[in-house]
Every structure is written in C-alpha cells, then in structure tokens.
C-alpha cells in the first residue's frame, strides 16, 4: 500500500462494526459458500453464535459478492424460519492485513443441520416431525418468496434446525432478488446444487422464479423419508435423465413451450418415460396426502408446480396427525 493511503486510512475510526474479539471461538463447524463457520460464545451475554469468516480468495473482485448478497438479503429478511444475522463484526485491521479488516458474519447458533440429522442412524423422525419440518420449510419459503427473494441453493445441509425444533433456512450466498413478469430477466442458471436442481435450470432457463426453490423442497421432502438425496446425478445430463425416469418425459404436452428452452433440443432424453413419483416413493412415504404433496412439488412444469402458499394449505398439514 502506498504511503499516503496508509496515512489516510489510519485517521479513520470505526465505531460501527464491533470487534469480533467479543466472541470466544470454540470449534469449526462447517464450510459455507464463502467461508469457514465457527461455533462461538459471546463473552458478555454467553449467547452461542455461529461465526462465518469471509474468505477473500479472489482479491481482484474485492469483497466477495456472495458475502454482499448474504448480508444485504439477511438484513432484509427477518423471520422465525430464516437464520438470523445478529451483526457483522470485524477483526482489527493492521498493517499485516494491509489494512483490510477480516469480516465475520455473526448468526444465531443452530445445533443441527438436516443433512446431518438424516445421516445419523440414531435420529428417527415420525410423521408428526416430518410434517413439522415440511411445514416450517414451506413457511420459510413463503416468507422469502413474498419478499421477492429466491434462495437458489436449497439442500438439506442448508436447512438448520435448533435444538428446540425450529427450522431455519440458511446460506443465502447464492440468493437474489427477483422481479416479476413485466421485466425480462436474465439470471444465471448456474445455481443450485446439482441433485436439487430443477428441470427448468437444467434446460437452461434464465427467467425463472420461486418454483426453483419449491423443486428443492420436493427433493428435501423425499429425503426426509428416504434418508438420502433421491436423485444423485453426476452430470447435468445424468440429472435430467434421473428426473425423467422419476417424473416422466419432458415435452410440450406436460410443459407448454418447454421446447423453447435453450438446451431442450440439445439434450437427448427418453421420449416415453411414464411419471412414477407416487409409485416409486409410496413404499417410503406411507401417507396418501404426503405423497400427493410430494407429487405436486416435483412437478416438471414450473408454472404448475405448487407454490409455498398453496403448499401450506395442502391437506397434508391439516389432517391427523397434526404437525405441532
């Protein structure tokens, strides 16, 4: 850094972001889109938090856009079912870091993530608990979609659950605001972890919306019973193949104008697969309305896919046994 900049920067005081030293670090608990996550405890209040360190791997771009998204979107979204961003802290800047502060996002601490719970053979879910998880998942999605935010990275490891059983959508590093119909958006389709990626993204759509998250919710719902991701493709083609095998062939009949999507004609897919979502999953999900909801979440045509709002009205959540 040049001499005169050093001078100027040193004259500044930063009363606005607090020093991360007020949290005592415990153990590393995970790795997010843009940084490591530590469990930590506030020295004053004893409150447990998750500290997410913002890694600066691409220095040419400056402060990572994923972190900017997470900050700006979580400041906007305050809901029981969305992970709470408590504050942003920094480690003191010094000449050693070339006067760049290290930034930390401070989140409320959640004991579990859904992927971990599903992996553990000691954890069993009964129907009431499964309903409760799905209900809260749909509540969270309803809230963010109403606020015109797409999560864009639905997967079981991004679903956190507190020890009191409250579900929190987390990791908004890929999320973005969307604008409805009138404008002609062109978003990137390189989002969402492959196994949870909906057919419209795999076919190259760039003007998608909330249904992309609902597809993910469908994959997660099936996972709640099957205890592992239901479609584990290792390439985009393979993933589309798996989707076709489960949800039937993709054509203009089930999905008007699907042939207009960029990649539709470039990918060879079976033409005569029959839809068998219910048949294939009924041995796991032994509940008729549950199967029906799953079927509606895993609908190929995004325009027909059930919305979070409609899902919350689904009989699955309103018949016995009730969610808590």
């Amino acid at each position: 850094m040049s001499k005169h900049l050093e001078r100027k920067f040193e004259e500044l005081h930063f009363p606005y972001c607090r020093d991360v030293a007020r949290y005592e670090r415990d153990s590393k608990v995970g790795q997010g889109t843009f940084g490591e996550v530590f469990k930590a405890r506030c020295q004053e209040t004893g409150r447990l938090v998750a500290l997410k360190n913002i890694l600066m791997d691409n220095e040419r771009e400056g402060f990572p856009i994923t972190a900017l998204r997470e900050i700006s979107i979580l400041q906007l979204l305050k809901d029981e079912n969305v992970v709470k961003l408590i504050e942003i802290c920094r480690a003191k800047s010094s000449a050693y870091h070339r006067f760049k502060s290290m930034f930390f996002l401070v989140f409320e601490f959640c004991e579990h993530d859904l992927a971990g719970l599903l992996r553990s053979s000691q954890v069993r879910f009964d129907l009431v608990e499964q309903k409760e998880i799905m209900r809260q998942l749909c509540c969270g999605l309803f809230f963010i979609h109403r606020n015109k935010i797409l999560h864009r990275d639905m997967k079981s490891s991004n679903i956190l659950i507190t020890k009191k059983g409250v579900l929190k959508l987390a990791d908004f590093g890929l999320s973005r605001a969307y604008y409805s119909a009138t404008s002609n958006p062109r978003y990137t389709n390189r989002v969402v972890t492959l196994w949870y990626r909906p057919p419209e993204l795999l076919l190259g759509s760039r003007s998608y919306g909330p249904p992309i998250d609902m597809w993910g919710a469908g994959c997660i719902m099936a996972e709640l019973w099957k205890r592992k991701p239901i479609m584990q493709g290792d390439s985009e083609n393979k993933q589309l193949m798996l989707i076709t095998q489960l949800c039937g062939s993709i054509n203009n009949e089930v999905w008007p104008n699907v042939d207009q999507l960029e990649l539709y004609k470039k990918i060879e897919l079976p033409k005569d697969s029959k839809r068998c979502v219910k048949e294939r999953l009924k041995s796991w999900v032994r509940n008729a309305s549950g199967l029906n909801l799953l079927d509606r979440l895993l609908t190929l045509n995004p325009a027909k896919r059930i919305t979070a709002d409609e899902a919350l009205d689904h009989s699955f959540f309103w018949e016995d046994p009730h969610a808590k």
Partner: protein
Amino acid sequence: MAGNFWQSSHYEEWILDKQDLSAKRKSDLQHLTEEEYQKIIILFANFIQALGESVKLRQQIIATATVYFKRFYSRNSLKCVDPSLMSPTCLLLAMKVEEYGPTLSNKIMTSCNNLTKGKFQYAFKQEYPYRLVNVLECEFILLEMMDCCLIVYHPYRPLTEYCAELNDDSILPLAWRIVNDSLRTDACLLYPPYLIAIAAMHLACVMLKKDCQKWFAELSVDFDMILEITQLLLALYDLWRDGYDEKRDIYAILEKMPKAKTNPVAPRS
C-alpha cells in the same frame, strides 16, 4: 430491491437527523463554507454519474453509488479518504450489490483516468493517482463505515407508481430529472424516498403548470417534510441559476478542501 422499506436498514439507520448531519460536518466547515462544501459534494455526484454513464450503468446503480458516497461523508471528514478515490469505490460496490452482472472494475478505472484528464480536467489538473488495488482496499473502509447497510431505496419506483396513478405521462420525465437532481442535495440522507418522489412530482407539476392539487391533497403525508425537500431542491436550482460555474470555480474550492497532509503519490501497482 424488494423488501419492506420500513423494516430496512435504510429506514432504521440511515434516515439521519439534520442536527447530527451538521455536527458531523463541523470540522470540514472550518475550512469551507456550507455552500462550498455542497459544491464539492455536487462535483463528486457528477463524477460518479459520469463514471456510471461511461460504462452505461442503469440510473438505479448510479443512484445507489451516490447515496453510499454521501453516507460515507456524512460520518467522515472529506480529509479521511480522498473523494476521488471514494467515488469509483462506491460505484463498484453498488454494481455488486445491485447485481450488475459483469465486473467492469478495469473499465471503471480507465474511465477515472479518462474523465479526470478530459471532462473533469478543470477539477483535477493532475493524473488520476489511484489503481484498482486502492479501490479494493477502500471498499472495506466503505463497508465498515456504512455498517454493511447495503440496500438503498430510491424515489424512482414510488415515483413511477404515483405517476401511473395520476395518469399523466408528461410529469414523469421532469419529475425523474428532479429526483436525479435531488442526489445533489442532502435529501437522500434526511428523508424517506417516497417523500422525495412526492416532492419531485409536486415541483414538476408546478413547473408544468398542472393542477394536481386534488391528488396531492388526498395523500396522507407530512407536507412539512415535502416542503423541506422542496426547499433543498430550490436551493440547488438557485445555486445553478445564480451563475455558479463548476468549471470556473471548483478548483479553487478543492484547494481549500481539507486533505491528509502528504501529497498524493501514484502508488506502485
């Protein structure tokens, strides 16, 4: 940006109080008159606007960058960070926050060079001393100083909605320009954007001799605030009308601007 203004950091942390704002400016006002201070802020709003236009950014992004700039100096003296460094920094951050796809950082830096040598030569008179690496360092300072409050609401959206309600196409273009002008006043630091939109519409109606009193009367808003915003705008128009010539006058004012003691040296890149 989507979401609810009334729950936003813009509303909760960044609608400032007039007294606070003048208190923070006090140290700069030992060297500059209030009017000179305003002229410096106007210069850099123009600079940010020109930088944004040089890479064809939407007005929304330029407006966000301008608000960032004003937020930074609402808490800091002009001498803390050279505003000619802060300007591209605000623009690059605003582009990221507003999800402007490609990174144009190098183009922005080229524009800084070109504009200071060309269109804004009257203000700078020497080579633009900063490189991208300086801007990226400065970005951290900006982020911290704004307490990472990134979402800025602008008057443009409410303005478009109100004009549609009024059902008169002739008002929007002029009111839109007035909103752009409002970025050269303190309005965006002091008042919620929808009030700025209403003030701009009101002023546009007066200028166009349109009688929309009925529509305004039915709004349930604080007309004292609309009046205050209008006064800020009129003061700006007075300044321009009373023969202020940025090209002729700004250099002398910048000379008086408080700066860090060392002279800028081109950093090694």
